[in-house]
């Protein structure tokens, strides 16, 4: 058993167990802690896949930002009986059966995909090509043919790689910040 396989076994077990903990925990605070371990496990899996920048972004944005927001939400709303809202057992059974069926379906589908033969060839690009592609300096034409296009036809593709999604996401973040601040603002009392 090689080192990557052993590391994957350990990290995948931790991730799966803590994901199960998120589902099974009744207390919101415990759910947040289980979710923390799941997010860290997924980030370790990114490191294992060789995507260092994505793993670092996952650690910083998800674990450092998103989860802190969620914990703040838990702190502001979990008071007394709201901390543990029990689900009815019948609903749990129906949801569990649904989840198991979905898991089986996804496993069957993923076994039908088959491992690509060029597993050793893939070396993920580091932060520099990623940044250049976000700024539109890298040409990103996939080698394969696009589905639905006849074989001989040349598909015109712009060389500006991911500049437009990058700009859309940045404007979207600005709009979301303004919207969230507006939604969650403290209501002023109107003086009579």
């Amino acid at each position, binding site marked *: 058993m*090689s080192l990557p396989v052993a590391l994957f076994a350990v990290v995948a077990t931790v991730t799966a167990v803590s994901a199960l903990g998120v589902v099974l925990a009744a207390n919101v605070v415990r*759910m947040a802690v289980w979710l923390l371990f799941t997010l860290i496990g997924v980030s370790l899996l990114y490191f294992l896949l060789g*995507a260092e920048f994505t793993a670092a972004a996952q650690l910083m944005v998800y674990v450092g930002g998103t989860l802190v927001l969620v914990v703040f939400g838990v702190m502001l709303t979990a008071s007394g009986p709201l901390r543990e809202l029990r689900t009815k057992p019948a609903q749990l059974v129906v949801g569990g059966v649904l989840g198991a069926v979905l898991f089986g379906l*996804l496993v069957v589908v993923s076994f039908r995909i088959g491992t690509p033969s060029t597993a050793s060839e893939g070396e993920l690009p580091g932060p520099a090509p990623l940044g250049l592609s976000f700024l539109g300096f890298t040409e990103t034409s*996939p*080698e*394969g043919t696009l589905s639905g296009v006849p074989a001989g036809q040349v598909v015109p593709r712009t060389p500006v790689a991911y500049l437009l999604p990058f700009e859309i*996401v940045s404007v979207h973040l600005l709009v979301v910040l303004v919207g969230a601040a507006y939604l969650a603002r403290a209501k002023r009392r109107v003086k009579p």
Partner: protein
Amino acid sequence: MNELGLQPFLILSAFLFSCGVVCIATKRNAIGVLMGVELLLNASNLNLVAFARFKPGFALDGQVFALLVIVLAAAEVAVALAIILNFYNNHATVDVDAADSLRD
């Protein structure tokens, strides 16, 4: 089994996805539902990065999509928490079963 292939990542991602779906379907706390959404997004992200590693010609795209999903998830959580806080201020509960005022 000496080589780490694509399948183990896909199966783990499927497990995370199922956990997220069950979490969304069964949790009564609105923040619990939000955590289920986080699980779903992480599962799809893991799929994207795994395909970026193992599919030739997809190395850049998979990572870029994963980064965009991470950023959009952060934005989504901010808005969802603002809505949940508003709901808590108005109804003094975070039980999603209590959010049925549109029914009447």
